[in-house]
C-alpha cells in the first residue's frame, strides 16, 4: 500500500458528478458539418495540406504539424472540405481563429490504418513519432503535445509514469467514464507509454470518489497481471493538478519553474493513454474524445464520444438543452473553465466538459468588495502561495514583486477566489499579470534585438563613410602624384580644357 501524502490547502466544492451518469456513453448524431481549428493544442498551429472543395476520408491528415511543438489535425469522418477560414472557437478571448470546415457526407468511410502491433521491439523514438503523427495532445485540458512529453532527453531519465485519473473538478466525469469503458485500452496504452519513456514503475492515481473507475482499472490490471499500481486518495480540489497529484502520490515536489521530468516523473491523462493505445496498436489518429455534457439546463446530461469539430450548440441541443434568458455555457469545469461567447465554436482535443448551468445552480459572480485581508486564500492555495499579496501586486503591476512571490507557480485553480468572502476575481488578476509579464518580456527581447540591429547599421554606415573618405583621399593623392610627375597642375589643366571647349563652342555657330 502506497503512502498517501497531502497537499497544502484545497477546497471541497459540491461535486455534482452524478448528474452526468459517469460510466455511460450516449451516442449522438453526427452534425452536418465539423469545424476543426488548426490550433487545438499548445504551440504552433498546424499547416493545412488540403484544398477547399477536396473530398477527404475519415482519418486523413487535414493539416500537418508545423514544428516540434505542434501536432497534425485529422478528419474525424468522410466528407468535403468547405472552407479554411476564421471561425469562432472556444477560447476565453471570444476571438476567432483559422479552422477547416468539413461537410460530413454520412458515409463515414475511413482510410486504412497501419499500427505497430509489435511495439515492444520498436525504438521509443519511432513510437513517439507515431504518437505525434496521430495528432495526440494532452487531453486533460492544457493540450500539451504528448510526443514532446515522451522525449524528455537523456539528461532527464524517467523512473515513474503517472496516469492522472484524479479529475478533481466538479461536474466533469469524462475521465471517470473513459476509465470505466476503456480500462483495457488504458492499461495497454499505459504499458506502451512506459516502454517509450523507459519508466520502471507505473502508477495510476484515481480520487476515491470514483469507486467504479478504480474497480474497472484494477480488474483490467489483474486480468493481464501488469506491473501497474492503482492508487486511490481522498477527494479534494485541486488534487488533479499535475504538481499536486505528484506530491500526493510520491511525496516529492516538482521544483518551482521546473517540470515533473526534472524529478524523473511524467504525468499523463488517461484519455491521452487510450489515444496512444489506439495510435500505436491500430494506427488510428485522434479524431474523437469523450465530452461531459452536464448542467441543470440540460434535460439529459450525459457523456458522449464526440467528433472533434462538433459545434457546441449541436451537442447541447441533442441532449435537451432549454436555454434560459442569460444562459452561460462553460467550456471546462466550473472552477477553471471559461464561458463560451459563441456556441458555433467546436469541440476540440481539450474539451473535456461543456457545462450549461441554470442561474440558480451557478449564480453569476457577485460584486467584488474590498479585500479585508482575512487570509482565507492563503489557507486554500494548493501551491502554498500568498494570493492576497499577489492580488495587491497584480493591481499595482509590480512585476518584480510578482516574480518574487512566485506568480508563475500559480496553477490558476481558483481555490482562492472560491473561498474569498469579498468575491474578488483573484484568478483573473493572476492571469492578466502573467500575460503582462510575458508581454513585457517579449517586448524587451524585441527591443534588445532592435538595438543590436540599429547599432550594427550605424557601425556599417560609419565604416562605409570611412571607406569612401579613404578612397577619395587615395584618388586625390594619386592625382597629386600624377601632377608632380607630369609637372602639370591637374586643376589648371581642367580649367584650360574647359576654356578650350568654351572657345570651340563660341566659334562653332
Amino acid at each position, binding site marked *: 500500500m502506497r503512502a498517501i501524502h497531502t497537499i497544502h490547502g484545497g477546497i471541497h466544492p459540491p461535486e455534482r458528478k452524478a448528474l452526468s451518469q459517469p460510466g455511460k456513453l450516449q451516442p449522438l448524431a453526427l452534425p452536418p458539418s465539423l469545424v476543426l481549428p488548426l*490550433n487545438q493544442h499548445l504551440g504552433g498551429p498546424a499547416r493545412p495540406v488540403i484544398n477547399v472543395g477536396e473530398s477527404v476520408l475519415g482519418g486523413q491528415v487535414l493539416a500537418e504539424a508545423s514544428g516540434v511543438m505542434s501536432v497534425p489535425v485529422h478528419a474525424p469522418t468522410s466528407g468535403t472540405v468547405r472552407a479554411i477560414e476564421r471561425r469562432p*472557437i472556444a*477560447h*476565453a*478571448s471570444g*476571438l*476567432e*481563429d483559422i479552422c477547416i470546415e468539413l461537410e460530413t457526407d454520412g458515409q463515414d468511410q475511413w482510410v486504412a490504418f497501419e499500427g505497430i502491433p509489435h511495439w515492444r521491439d520498436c525504438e521509443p523514438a519511432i513510437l513517439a513519432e507515431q504518437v505525434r503523427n496521430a495528432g495526440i495532445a494532452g487531453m486533460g485540458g492544457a493540450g500539451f503535445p504528448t510526443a514532446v512529453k515522451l522525449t524528455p532527453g537523456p539528461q532527464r531519465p524517467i523512473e515513474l509514469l503517472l496516469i492522472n485519473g484524479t479529475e478533481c473538478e466538479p461536474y466533469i466525469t469524462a475521465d471517470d467514464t473513459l476509465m470505466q469503458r476503456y480500462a483495457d485500452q488504458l492499461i495497454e496504452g499505459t504499458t506502451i507509454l512506459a516502454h517509450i519513456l523507459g519508466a520502471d514503475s507505473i502508477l495510476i492515481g484515481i480520487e476515491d470518489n470514483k469507486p467504479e473507475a478504480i474497480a474497472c482499472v484494477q480488474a483490467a490490471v489483474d486480468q493481464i497481471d501488469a506491473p501497474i499500481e492503482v492508487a486511490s486518495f481522498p477527494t479534494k480540489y485541486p488534487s488533479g493538478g499535475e504538481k499536486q497529484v505528484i506530491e500526493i502520490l510520491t511525496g516529492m515536489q516538482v521544483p518551482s519553474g521546473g517540470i515533473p521530468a526534472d524529478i524523473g516523473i511524467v504525468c499523463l491523462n488517461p484519455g491521452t493513454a487510450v489515444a496512444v493505445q489506439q495510435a500505436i496498436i491500430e494506427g488510428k489518429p485522434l479524431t474523437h474524445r469523450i465530452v461531459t455534457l452536464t448542467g441543470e439546463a440540460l434535460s439529459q446530461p450525459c457523456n458522449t464520444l464526440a467528433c472533434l469539430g462538433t459545434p457546441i450548440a449541436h451537442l447541447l441541443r441533442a441532449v435537451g438543452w432549454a436555454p434560459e434568458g442569460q444562459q452561460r455555457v462553460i467550456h471546462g469545469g466550473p472552477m477553471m473553465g471559461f464561458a463560451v461567447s459563441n456556441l458555433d465554436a467546436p469541440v476540440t482535443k481539450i474539451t473535456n466538459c461543456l457545462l450549461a448551468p441554470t442561474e440558480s445552480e451557478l449564480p453569476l459572480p457577485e*460584486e*467584488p*468588495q*474590498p479585500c479585508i485581508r482575512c487570509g482565507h486564500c492563503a489557507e486554500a492555495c494548493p501551491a502554498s502561495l500568498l494570493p492576497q499579496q499577489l492580488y495587491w501586486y*497584480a*493591481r499595482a503591476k509590480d512585476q518584480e514583486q510578482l516574480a518574487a512571490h512566485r506568480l508563475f507557480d500559480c496553477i490558476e485553480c481558483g481555490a482562492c477566489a472560491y473561498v474569498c468572502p469579498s468575491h474578488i*476575481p483573484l484568478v*483573473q*488578476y493572476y*492571469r*492578466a*499579470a*502573467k*500575460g*503582462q509579464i*510575458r*508581454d*513585457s518580456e517579449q*517586448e524587451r527581447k*524585441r*527591443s*534588445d*534585438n*532592435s*538595438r543590436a*540591429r*540599429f547599432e*550594427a*547599421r550605424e557601425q556599417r554606415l560609419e565604416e562605409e563613410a570611412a571607406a569612401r573618405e579613404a578612397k577619395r583621399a587615395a584618388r586625390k593623392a594619386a592625382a597629386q602624384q600624377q601632377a608632380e610627375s607630369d609637372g602639370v597642375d591637374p586643376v589648371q589643366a581642367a580649367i584650360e580644357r574647359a576654356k578650350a571647349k568654351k572657345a570651340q563652342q563660341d566659334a562653332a555657330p
Partner: protein
Amino acid sequence: MVGWLATEPLFAALAALLLLGSVFGALLGYAAIRFRVEGNPISEQINALLPQTQCGQCGYPGCRPYSEAIAEGDAINKCPPGGEETIQALADLLDVEPQPLDAEHGVEKEPVVAWIREAECIGCTKCIQACPVDAILGAAKVMHTVIADECTGCDLCLEPCPVDCIDLIPRKQGIGFWHWPLPEDRLRPIEVIATDAATRTAA
C-alpha cells in the same frame, strides 16, 4: 626629525594626517584612472529601457541620443512608443516623479509593423535607406518587402516612399497575442469609518 616630532605631538599628528592623506589620495587617483568607466553608465541603463523603435519622435535621432539627453536632465516623457510603461520604468530608475506622456511628441498607439503593398512597389530602395534597423529587404528596381519580425514600426519608411505603398498594420493581431485583461475595478471607494458616509450624504 623623528626625535623632534616625538617632542611636538601637535606637529606629529599633522604630519601623520598629511601622510595618510597623500597616500589615500594617490590610491584614489590611481583607481580613478585604472577603473575608469567608459561612457555614461546611466545613459546605458536608460537606453536599455527605451523601446528601440529608433523613430525619432522624441526629437533626437534615435534611442541612444535620447537616453544621453535624459542622462543630462531632459524630460522622460517624450517617448510615445514606450508609453506609460517606459515612463514608469524610467521614473523608477532615475528616482523622479513619473509625468504623463508629452502629447507634443505624439500619443501612445498600438504597436504596428510596416507592410509594403508589393504590387505597387517600384523598387526605388528609398525605404531601405531610411530603415534604422535594416528590416527592409530588396534591391534597385525589384520589389521590396519588410521583415515583420525585425520591424519596429517607427514609420520612417513612409515619408520617403514615392508611391505611398507602405502601410502600418497592427502587430499584435490574433488569438496568440491575447491575454486576460485585469478585471475592471468595480470596487466602491472604501469608507474608512461609518461617519465618512454620513458627512458625504450631509454635504
